[in-house]
């Protein structure tokens, strides 16, 4: 039986160690996000060059979420947020996870085994967001705290948001590197022959 758990950010490793695959999590506090491939590429490049990121990431989080932002009255107005496909960033995530000692990441669809191993090394967790959940996720945003790289298109910018009970988010990769996505994929592939046999039987 999976559980519902409220987490207050910022987190420590101890908060994450007990999370189990399939647990549903609600986040309260500040999160960092971007949905831009060029953004993640630049973060990794600058990390290797020793340039500090424009938003504090050390020991924190970055989520694969895009934000529709509008400059208004000297600040930023958020129209909506939504997750993007995490595997697009697979080649970059291990460097980011280990480079910034990230404790939380997430988006939709999971990450590769290499990324899961990187999370195991930092004791971090991947949270699966509901795709197509823009109205629900946007309701959880209380404020836009910070926007970096504003010259980029809206969803590529790095955004720090204050959220209240953002979720439900499913624990997809736990702090030991176990991946719900990898487990489900292994089961599915293991069923292939049996399913083909059932198809043959059904054709008669």
């Amino acid at each position: 039986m999976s559980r519902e758990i409220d987490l207050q950010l910022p987190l420590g490793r101890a908060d994450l160690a007990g999370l189990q695959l399939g647990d549903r999590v609600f986040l309260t506090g500040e999160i960092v996000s971007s949905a831009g491939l060029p953004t993640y590429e630049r973060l990794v490049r600058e990390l290797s060059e020793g340039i500090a990121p424009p938003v504090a990431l050390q020991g924190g989080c970055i989520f694969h979420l895009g934000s529709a932002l509008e400059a208004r009255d000297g600040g930023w107005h958020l129209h909506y947020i939504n997750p993007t496909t995490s595997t697009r960033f697979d080649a970059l995530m291990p460097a980011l996870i280990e480079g910034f000692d990230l404790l939380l990441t997430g988006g939709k669809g999971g990450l590769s085994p290499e990324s899961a191993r990187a999370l195991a090394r930092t004791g971090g967790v991947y949270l699966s967001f509901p795709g197509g959940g823009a109205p629900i996720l946007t309701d959880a945003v209380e404020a836009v705290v910070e926007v970096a790289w504003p010259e980029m298109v809206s969803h590529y910018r790095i955004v720090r948001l204050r959220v209240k009970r953002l979720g439900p988010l499913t624990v997809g990769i736990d702090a030991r590197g176990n991946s719900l996505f990898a487990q489900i994929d292994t089961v599915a592939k293991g069923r292939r022959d049996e399913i083909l046999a059932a198809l043959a039987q059904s054709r008669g």
Partner: protein
Amino acid sequence: MADDALIRRLGGELFNRAVRRVPDDTVHALRQAMERERTETARKTLAMQLRSAELAAERNAFVCSDNGIPVYFVRLGSESPIRADFKAALKAGYEALVENVQPPFLPHVTNPLTRERSHTGKGVPIVTFDQEGGVDWVEIVCSPKALGSGRWAALELFTFPSIAEIEAYVLDVAIRAGGQHCPPVAVGVGIGGTFDYAAKMAKEATLRPLGTPHTDPEVAAMEDRLTRAINALGYGPMGTGGDTTTLGVHVEWCAGHGFTPVAVAFNCWINRRSRVRIHPGGDVEWIE
């Protein structure tokens, strides 16, 4: 031409409608899936998806932040008196919407050579045409398409394949997509014809309302067994496990040569689509 203004208006309305509501057949299929699901995680995910659809409808809000690229399918009745420069009018309607829509769309139209993103670009919107003999209406379907489910479509060319090979291929494409395409998805399969036409049939098959099996009982039986086969994989809603990976498989086929293309296309759970018919005199009937 005479009806350009009408088509321009509908071009904007079709896209705007498609991104703010989940079609009725899809909501119904999601509710049915809730009743079948055996795992709590899957039921909770489906409940969240239904809640998101409900909130989007109540508030006239976007269901997803990625509204995709605009794709229109125009079906011209051979007896229709409607006359328009359809491509130009739909483009003008879409661009006017982009200019005025609130909240704004994110720029997702991508130049594939430079990766630059914008709200429009070369060849966009994508507009294709077909003709329906003996009817006096024009039908336009809008299907905004994004990477999330779009990237998992596939096509393979076989020579004289058996049904078993065709079905195994569909299953393998579903395994490759796994739970990445925001399931539960609508699956379209196109078999036969030519390279380009098989892809077109697969795409059009995804646009057929769920719960509407093929009229040929043998093809309907194939749809039913492929639906059960894909759901037996267990990827489930959002890929976090469960009995519902697809809300339905639709198959279309066409005679071809000995080389047989098989194409598979997916629509994510929000199954974006809007459809309008224009009758003689410009009477507009919203079908979905």
